[in-house]
């Protein structure tokens, strides 16, 4: 790490807990000493290290060694042949962060970086504004090292995501409003208390954690960049960081600098970024979210502008899917690959299906889908849409009768 640098005007700031350029409010980003990193970082060196996200330590923004979330990352990269056939594409991979450690979403990546850095800077209380997954991850990772935590969430979140924060002893504050309102309140709170807000004043460090998902994709493909990556967009941050991770690997000579596209996926009920991209705009219009994909329900996406820029630069596409298509995406992935993802994953699968069908992802190419969260957390969204168990008494005769009836039905 060299400094924090404004993405808009390039002004530099010291490496403290601050996220906004004083001059133009542009977001601050961590700057690295790439020539120095290039001298020592090789695929062999990375492969000799433990299979966690921290094997890319030189490209993650902490000063010493990680102290929170040391086991996070290096999730499975699944070759999804059955789903590939159903979607009509030659080669398909699932990057499965639905089983990330410890809280089953990609957020453990950003949180382990943010909390490790927060401890380096001397904080003892951590906090976040969250649509659910981030709250779970902050609560769990803070508990694991004895940090005090406050998590702020929309009060109407899925039960699974609320319980998954409370159980760790976090202070969970439900805000009567949607995420954008939680976000605004947290921006005001963060200015008042001396806490490390992972996605406010710690954001420059926090956001860099997402790059590890892209590093792993490239390494797991055999040190190659994927032709197509489909990424769900809430604030748009993950998409921009996957792009950055590919660029960094190419710049450091760890992969060949081949062409790639990073496509964006949103829910139609909250699609400011995909709507802007489809109509060729380089700015978005804020919306009021109305979708079952609550983890993506950000109507004023802070990184929307940069996500649009990345999609334009890589000639990528964006699209969005309805609530029904989201549920269909969840079932498609579950039935063909045995992976149960949350609504955001349903969005990614649904949009990938559309992009393949329309030829925006050509059938002869290879694609990676970023599955970012676990279906057990959003049961509410699929209950009543996946059928019900058939109930019988514990009798062989009843079971045979049931099978018989179903076989008859199937032949009708």
């Amino acid at each position: 790490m060299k400094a924090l640098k404004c993405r808009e005007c390039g002004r530099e700031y010291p490496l403290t807990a601050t996220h906004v350029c004083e001059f133009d409010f542009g977001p601050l980003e961590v700057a690295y000493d790439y020539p120095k990193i290039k001298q020592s970082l090789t695929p062999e060196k990375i492969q000799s290290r433990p299979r966690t996200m921290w094997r890319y330590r030189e490209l993650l923004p902490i000063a010493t060694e990680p102290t929170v979330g040391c086991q996070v990352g290096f999730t499975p990269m699944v070759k999804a042949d059955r789903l590939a056939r159903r979607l009509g594409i030659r080669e398909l991979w699932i990057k499965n962060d639905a089983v990330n450690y410890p809280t089953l979403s990609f957020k453990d990546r950003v949180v382990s970086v943010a909390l490790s850095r927060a401890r380096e800077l001397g904080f003892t209380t951590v906090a976040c504004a969250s649509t659910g997954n981030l709250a779970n991850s902050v609560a769990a990772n803070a508990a694991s090292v004895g940090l005090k935590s406050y998590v702020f969430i929309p009060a109407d979140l899925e039960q699974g995501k609320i319980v998954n924060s409370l159980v760790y002893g976090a202070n969970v504050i439900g805000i009567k409003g949607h995420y954008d309102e939680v976000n605004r309140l947290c921006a005001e709170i963060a200015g008042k208390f001396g806490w490390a807000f992972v996605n406010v004043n710690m954001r420059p460090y926090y956001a860099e954690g997402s790059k590890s998902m892209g590093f792993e994709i490239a390494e797991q493909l055999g040190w190659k960049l994927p032709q197509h990556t489909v990424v769900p967009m809430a604030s748009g941050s993950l998409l921009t960081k996957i792009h950055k991770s590919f660029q960094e690997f190419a710049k450091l000579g760890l992969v060949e600098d081949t062409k790639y596209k990073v496509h964006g996926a949103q829910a139609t009920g909250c699609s400011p970024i995909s709507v802007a991209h489809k109509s060729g705009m380089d700015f978005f219009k804020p919306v009021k979210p109305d979708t079952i994909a609550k983890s993506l329900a950000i109507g004023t996406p802070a990184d929307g502008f940069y996500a649009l820029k990345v999609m334009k630069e890589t000639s990528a596409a964006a699209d969005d899917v309805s609530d029904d298509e989201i549920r269909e995406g969840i079932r498609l992935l579950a039935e063909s690959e045995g992976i149960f993802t949350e609504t955001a994953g349903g969005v990614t699968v649904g949009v990938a299906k559309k992009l393949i069908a329309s030829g925006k992802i050509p059938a002869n190419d290879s694609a990676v889908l970023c599955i970012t969260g676990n279906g057990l957390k959003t049961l509410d969204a699929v209950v009543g849409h996946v059928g019900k168990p058939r109930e019988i008494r514990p009798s062989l005769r009843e079971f045979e009768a049931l099978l018989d009836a179903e076989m008859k039905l199937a032949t009708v």
Partner: protein
Amino acid sequence: MAKVRIPTPLRKLTNNEELIEVNAGTVGAAITELQSRYPGIKERLVDDTGAIRRFVNVYVNEEDIRFLQNQETPLKNGDEISIIPAIAGG
């Protein structure tokens, strides 16, 4: 009179004042009024074309002015304006 809540990065310009009362009738006029009292503040909020900067969100009574009438949004007695940097998702 409406009140403007000044975010931390701008308080160096307002002698650390957090809440500033303005007489202006619209959000745009309030920014101009702030500029006349605290020179330099306008260019931090508004770009060369006169639009609110990309990473600045302005709210009147907790509603984003992009859902109201942007800089033409009228102000009445007791309204509160918040100026907040855009932040990340979660």
